[in-house]
């Protein structure tokens, strides 16, 4: 088993190189980039009020910068070398934990990402806890009360939430509760006067701002996990070993918790690791709507602005999280199911 996980960890490296080499090459192939952006800015600055030739690519000939200056810029950004060489230069820096410099903010990429991380982790962890905290108990109750009014109504509700896109939920909540009723703030992660608040006030302020985005994040996230839990538990309730437990003299309710529940968590465990990584990356649509400076929005904006060092930096972090999350899922499964033996010679019955 240990050797299996060691092997899995070693496999991260080639997978990581594969993912990054692909995206790195793509960033070279798509039009636009820091130089074009700079050219535009320079053109804007140079011809105040005058006609501006935008679209950097074609307008290069008549641009405000000389060819020599452009060549200098290309050297600066490493565009003068072939893709594969600059990729390995970039990769070498990654191994020294240097993610490069943002072309948009002209500050280290890590600083840019680091400032967004607490926000994303806050929403990620809150979503994770609320999702599992609601889905598992709800799934259990629904399995026991299968085909009752409670079961049907809650199914209708979770599917209703699942069917509406999260950004629609976000906009609807924002319009109703923030704009019309003014119960919650319109946007942002904290208020402007956040620094002047007491610790208690700060906590309340964050919560106040978090309610609506969390609703948008969560609305669609209950259906899959709840139904997975319910169906899995129902399968297990019909299993022979639950009958054995009752035949031993155990009360039904106790048999549910002592025998059926843990077995029902196995299918959930297979996706647990991935859930962690997915929530940390966040949703740029929801972040955009609520103007939250999180990971998702940063990724989206840096793509639009062709801020490739940041794009690559986010890719590094999210792909690593994803790869580690996969292994985490395997560990979870092995933890809840003693029959699972990874690697050679294990019999998975």
């Amino acid at each position, binding site marked *: 088993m240990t050797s299996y996980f060691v092997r899995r960890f070693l496999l991260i490296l080639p997978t990581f190189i594969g993912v990054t080499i692909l995206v790195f090459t793509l960033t070279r192939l798509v039009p636009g980039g820091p130089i074009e952006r700079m050219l535009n800015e320079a053109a804007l600055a140079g011809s105040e009020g005058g006609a501006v030739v935008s679209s950097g690519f074609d307008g290069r000939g008549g641009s405000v910068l000389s060819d020599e200056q452009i060549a200098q810029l290309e050297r600066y950004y490493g565009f003068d070398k072939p893709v594969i060489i600059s990729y390995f230069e970039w990769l070498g820096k990654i191994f020294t934990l240097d993610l490069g410099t943002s072309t948009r903010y002209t500050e280290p990429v890590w600083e840019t990402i680091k400032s967004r991380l607490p926000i994303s982790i806050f929403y990620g962890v809150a979503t994770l806890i609320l999702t599992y905290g609601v889905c598992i108990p709800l799934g259990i109750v629904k399995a026991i009360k299968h085909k009752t009014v409670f079961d049907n109504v809650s199914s209708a509700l979770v599917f209703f939430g699942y069917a509406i896109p999260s950004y629609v939920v976000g906009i609807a909540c924002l319009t109703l509760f923030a704009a019309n009723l003014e119960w919650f703030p319109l946007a942002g992660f904290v208020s402007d006067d956040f620094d002047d608040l007491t610790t208690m006030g700060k906590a309340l302020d964050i919560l106040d701002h978090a309610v609506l985005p969390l609703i948008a994040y969560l609305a669609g996230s209950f259906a899959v996990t709840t139904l997975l839990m319910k169906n899995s538990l129902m399968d297990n309730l019909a299993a022979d070993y639950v009958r054995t437990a009752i*035949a031993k003299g155990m009360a039904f309710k106790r048999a549910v918790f002592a025998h059926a529940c843990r*077995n029902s968590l196995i299918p959930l465990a297979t996706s647990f690791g991935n859930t962690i990584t997915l929530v940390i990356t966040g949703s740029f649509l929801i972040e955009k709507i609520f103007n939250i400076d999180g990971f998702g929005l940063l990724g989206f904006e840096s793509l639009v602005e062709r801020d490739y060092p940041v794009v690559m930096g986010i890719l590094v972090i999210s792909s690593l999280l994803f790869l580690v999350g996969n292994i985490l899922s395997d560990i979870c499964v092995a933890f809840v*199911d003693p029959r699972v033996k990874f690697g050679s010679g294990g019999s998975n*019955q």
Partner: protein
Amino acid sequence: MPLLAIENLAVSFETDEGIVDVIDGVSIDLAEGETLGLVGESGCGKSVTALTVMGLLPKPAGRVVGGAIHFDGRDITSLTSEELSTIRGRDIAMIFQEPMTALNPVHRVGNQLAESYRLHHPEASKAEIREESLKLMDHVGIPAAEQRLDEYPHQLSGGMRQRVMIAMALSSKPRVLIADEPTTALDVTIQAQILELLRDLQNEYGMAIVFITHDLGVIAELASRVVVMYAGRVAEAAPVDALFASPKHPYAQGLLASIPRLDSEPKSLLPTIPGVVPRIEDLPDGCRFSNRCAHARDACWTDKPAIESVATDRTVACLRWRELEQQAAASA
């Protein structure tokens, strides 16, 4: 008074096609310490009868619609599930057909065994439970019990798992042990070992055993009395020797005729009962065996046969059994 008396039991199941009578007027007596064989083809209601006694009918589909089950003077069909929990596992224990699935795959063997002991000895300390578990494992012939207790069910062979099931069932020294095809899923050599074990344990503990099987060989070896069931009714009930010597019901005759015999001609065709058990939804109105019975007459299709006494401790439910017996005697 018998220890366990099933009286005119009727059980129905709610299916998509309506309510079907799975058990129709079954009466079975079980005396203290005896071994009763319950035989019949798949789907004849043996297991449902056993599950009804245990109060383990699948809910909400299955329901007792008539009759009673008296255990020790109490009608257990009228008990609440809490009251039933004090009988289940303690006075009446059950082992199942599939030892592979009857144990929980994610709990250690020792925990599952300890659990059944603790349920009926709530005051026992951890050390006592461990000691008792080891004793039980040893009793049912599990070698290296100490180590086995810490293993998971998938690490045990089928025979060992069934031994664990038996150990769990015995942990409270029950008065009745219901064994629902406990050897069907096992190798033939292991079957013999398990049967041997059950017989030894019965001598030691003195419990009554209801042995459910479709294997008449097992019945001959183990049981003192047999109840032959067909399509939810009792066809014939008799002491085992009497049944094997002269079965009265055509179905029982058919079952016995289809056992290969040492004195039959080698490679000759084995007699079989034609047809299959009809679907429970379209059983014949009269005798439920009439559509497969070689001796059926018009009356068999319309009249439900009464349970008639043949001799002491022997009953048969066939309209024509006397007639058939006379015919057989005349031709012999």
